[in-house]
Every structure is written in C-alpha cells, then in structure tokens.
C-alpha cells in the first residue's frame, strides 16, 4: 500500500513536471481495495481487468514498476513502449488485461475472459473492476446478464469512490446501492468495505473461493474514497466536494488504519513503520528516476503493432 501511495505521488509529479501528458488518474485513498483483492487471487493465473485508474493493479500483479512509470511517461521502456500511457497499462503474461478508457466499455471483455476459461475447463477466476460511474453503463448491464446466463466465473468489483468524475453518487445513480445491480440477473451481490485492509482481504478470499468453486459470477460494491482529484487535470475539487468531506474521509485512510492496527497490537513500532515508509518512498523515487532515463520512442515505431502481421499504409 505504501509503495502504491508513493508511486502515485511520483505519477502526479511526472504530470506536474510535464513528463506525463494526457489524462492521469491515481489511486490515492483506494489502495486497500486493490491490495486486498489482488493478493487473494492466483497471480499470473487468474485474469484481471480494470478501467483507467490502473497503476495499482499493474504494480500488485508484479509488473516492473519502472516499466509502469516509463509507460506513464510515454517512454520506450514502458509496458506498451509508450503506446498506451497511464490509462492503458497491460501486462498480459501476468494476467493483467488493462487499462481501459471508455467508461463501462471493458466490462464485457472481462466477462469474455471468464467465458474463455470456462470454455477450456480451467478454474481461473476473472476480477473485473469498474468504477461507480461505469455501473450505469448499458453495456455493463449486458455484461451482467451474459455472465449470469452463461455462468462464467467473473467477479464484478465496483470500486465505489462516490464520484463519477465530478458527479456525486446521489446525482448519477437512481439507486445508490450499486451492488443491487446484480439482483435482476440472479447474481449474488453485496456491499463491502474497501478501507480496512484486513477486512477487505477476508471478504476477497471468501468470494474468490466461492466463485472458483461454484463457477458462477458475483457482484460486489466496495466502498472507498479517493483523496485526490478524479484525474491530474482535475484542479478544482470544490466544484463537487468540500475540504471537510475529504478530511473526514481521511479519518479512514487505509494506510493509517493499518498502521494503527499494527502499533496498537504491538506488531510493529511506529519507528519501524516510519523507516519502511522512508525506504519505500526512496524506492519510488529510484523508479521515477530510472523511468525518466528511458528514451522516447523513435518516430519510426509509430506503425508497429497496428496489426500482428502487416504494416498499415505509411505517410500522411
């Protein structure tokens, strides 16, 4: 969690310093959610897909942090050699299928991944992450129906950070209990906490085990909160929330909650935690510097990988 937090701060720095362009969405405040779920799967075997707030997912699945940061900076050393960017991280050998920018658009892909594993008689589970904004998309409902109809082992995980960009949950969803989206399709569904890491891990394990065993889909709504703007370009959060609200949410900062647990149970001293924090921050800085050393792509690479077997016509 600490590494993700520091990595994301350096992602924001990359944006501020003009080393990352476009859109960039960081995971600060939501770390326990991805950590809790992605540490409970069989990494490299199970499939994971998410939307554009995707840095944490890649890091947790074991992607090289330098390749992640280099991709965010659009460099040749990036996971997609600078073709994807922050929103489109992929590490397919590790079971990470992105990294998608159309709200709700990737949700049927996740169901299709799960269909493929069922088709082949494997016992993989697919974690299909989406935001609360995507929970209103038509194609998401189509995906839920098909996943339930074909009984595929897919867990739809709504990361409910209470805002669809700058629009509060109450203003974008007629029913704010998003887990109920599973009900009309006969799908098991529940709302869970996403801030207390130990609780998240327990819930994740229980549900992943159930889906692997029963080979049926599941829908969870995990309650979380982002402490930062929607994206790095979102520079006026007062348009949709107050400072007091953010401060109050920070009372349940997942990292602080875990530190309190560790210290109050005498599992780790405050000094030790601070030492780890400093070490982790230094590691994130090293990643940042190393990624920044990666060269920009050569202009001639622009035609690579449009097709697997041919080059498109060249020239303007």
């Amino acid at each position, binding site marked *: 969690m600490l590494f993700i937090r520091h990595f994301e701060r350096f992602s924001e720095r990359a944006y501020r310093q003009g080393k990352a362009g476009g859109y960039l969405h960081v995971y600060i405040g939501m770390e326990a959610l991805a950590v809790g779920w992605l540490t409970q799967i069989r990494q490299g075997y199970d*499939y994971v*897909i998410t939307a554009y707030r995707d840095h944490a997912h890649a890091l947790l699945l074991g992607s090289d942090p330098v390749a992640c940061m280099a991709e965010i900076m659009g460099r040749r050393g990036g*996971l*997609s*050699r600078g*073709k*994807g960017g922050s929103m*489109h991280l*992929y*590490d*397919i*050998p590790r079971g990470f*299928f*992105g*990294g*998608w920018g*159309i709200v709700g*658009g*990737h*949700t*049927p*892909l*996740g*169901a*299709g*991944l*799960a*269909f*493929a*594993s*069922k*088709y082949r008689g494997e016992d993989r589970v697919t974690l299909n992450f989406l935001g609360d904004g995507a929970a209103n998309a*038509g*194609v998401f409902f*189509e*995906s839920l*129906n*098909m996943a339930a*109809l*074909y*009984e595929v082992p897919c867990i739809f995980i709504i990361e409910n950070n209470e805002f669809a960009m700058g629009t509060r949950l109450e203003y974008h969803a007629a029913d704010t209990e998003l887990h109920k989206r599973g009900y009309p399709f006969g799908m098991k569904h529940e709302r869970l906490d996403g801030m207390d890491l130990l609780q998240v891990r327990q819930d994740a394990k229980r549900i992943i085990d159930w889906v692997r065993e029963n080979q049926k889909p599941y829908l969870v709504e995990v309650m979380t909160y982002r402490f930062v703007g929607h994206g790095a370009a979102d520079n006026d959060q007062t348009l949709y929330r107050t400072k007091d609200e953010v401060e109050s949410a920070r009372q349940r900062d997942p990292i602080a909650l875990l530190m309190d647990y560790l210290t109050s149970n005498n599992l780790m001293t405050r000094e030790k935690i601070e030492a780890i924090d400093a070490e982790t921050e230094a590691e994130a800085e090293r990643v940042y510097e190393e990624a920044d050393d990666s060269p920009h792509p050569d202009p001639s690479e622009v035609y*690579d*990988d*449009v*097709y*697997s*077997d*041919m080059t*498109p016509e060249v020239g303007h």
Partner: protein
Amino acid sequence: MPTIEMTYRDAVRQAMVEEMDANPDVFLMGEDIGRYRGTFRVTEGLYDKYGVEKNDFIVPGIARRVVDTPIVEPGIVGFAIGAAMVGLRPIVEMMTMSFSILALDQIINHAAKIHYMTAGQAKVPLVIRGPGGAANQLSAQHSHSVEGWYAHVPGLKVVAPATPACAKGLLRTAIRDDNPVIFTENPGLYGIKGDVPEDREFSIPFGKARIARQGTDLSLIAYSRMVHVCLAAAEQLAERGISAEVVDVRSLLPLDTETIFASVAKTHRAVVVYEDWKNGGYGAEIAARIAEECFDDLDAPVGRVGGLNVPMPYSRVLELECIPNADDVLAAVNKIA
C-alpha cells in the same frame, strides 16, 4: 483443383464448419444462430453438429461452441473480444451489419486498438460477419452498408466477397487471422451459386483483388454484390463494342491498389461502384486514390456510382431507386466515354 457448385450461403457455412472441425478454439456467437438456425439460415445445422454433445454444455441448455446470445450487440462483441484476447477464435454473426452500429464502440474503440495499445502483447482473432446492404424491403434500419466505416479504421481488416468461392476462401483466411476482421455478406448474394474448390485448405489472401472480367476500354471497380451489377453492365457495353474490365476489390482493408492501378493504366478510364451512400463511402476513397496516383494514365475524370444519399425507403419502387443498377453504371460510363 476439383470444385463443387454451391450457394454463397453454403460456402460461408462450409468455411465455418471446416475451421470448427480443424480447431477447437473456433466458436460461434450471435443472435438466433443456434436453435433458430440463423435469420438467413447461414448457421443451419451447426447447433445440432456442435451444440448438443453432452460435453459441449457449459450449463444446461447453453451450447458451448454455438452460443445463442441475448440481443445486445455491444455485449456480444465485447464478450467475444475478451475470449479472443486469451486465444479463442470467436466468429460473431451480426443479424445484419446495420445492427453492428450498436457495437461501434466495442469494434472501433476496443477490438481495433488492443494490439496497438498493448504494443503487441494481445491479439484479437475475432471475425464479425453477417449480411450488409439492402435485401428486400427491410427499410431504413436494416439495409445499410457499413463496410466503408470499418475500412476507415486502422487495426481492422475488412473484406466483402462477391462469389461463393471468394466467400469461402476469404472466410477461412479471416478465421485464421490474428486481427479483428469485418466480413460483410450482401444478403442479395446468399442464394447465388458458383464453383468452389473442394480443398479444405483453399483460402484467399487478404489484399488481393480479382479481375472478374477482362477488358481494355474502361475499368469498373466494385466489391460485394456491385461486382455482379458491373458484370451485367459490362455485358451490355460489350454489345455496344465497348470492352469493360471488372475489378472485384474483395478486400477493402488492406486494399490491393496495385491491381486497381494496373487495370486503370491499361484502360485509361475508371468508374467506381458501391452500394453504400455515395457521399463519403469507401468507393470515394478508391476513386481518390486513382485520381491521386493514376492522373497521367487517365483520359477522363474518375466516375463514381453510389447508393442514393437517403435513408433506405420501404417501398420496393423507392428501394430499387436507391440501389445502383446496371443502368446507373452505364449512365456513369457515358459521362466519361
């Protein structure tokens, strides 16, 4: 090469059967393609062949390899993309290509860009096939030719065969291709017959046009059903002593400009014919390329015949008015002759 006569519909079906037999990763998805046998009966018999063996069920009533879907084009295509990203080879039947408009986000914003966005980590061996173009009084929302929209998109391949042999050979290539392929079948072609090679490996590479009729005086350039319209026009021109060459483009993306330009270099006149709306259709792209690259060969401006720029009307009289026919081609030829 020994051949057998069959309809275009049967040729499409046979290519799917042979590839499903050859590769267990190939499977079909679509609306009413299984138990109902397909709206145009292209998938007739496949549910019985691939859907009913006990081991082929994933849940009771759902066949594994011939998957009846809900009527949700974005969901179907997205689902197929996901399966394709891990190596299955889905063939999605669109009940009509007009309905694929619902799935444009999945096709253009997802399928076409995955290989690029992942820098080659993921492939999408997906075929989207089905009837494209006007049938018989299906009116405004079921009659559109959308192949030109797809041929605009890097990352997709687009083919539009005109004969049973081309349909079979190109569909085999499409199924074996590791990139998303749009395969459009004009509904007016399903019943036409032609000789098709029996060889189970017979295939036609993408990006190779076909000379459907040799000629010396002008080039008629078309794809899909309009090839037959051009052949009829060429027949009438021959009676007037004009020798028209008919180029069957077959593959829109990649496009075989070499064959097209060679024909124009020989005849010095060209008319491009397409059923899609004339304004901004793919025929306009072909015409532009000829104008750009063959200026010195041309004795006249490039002619163009397209569908009328109106939504397809229901009335048969009005519908026939919209779809280019041999007379329309002759009128265009007269303008440049």
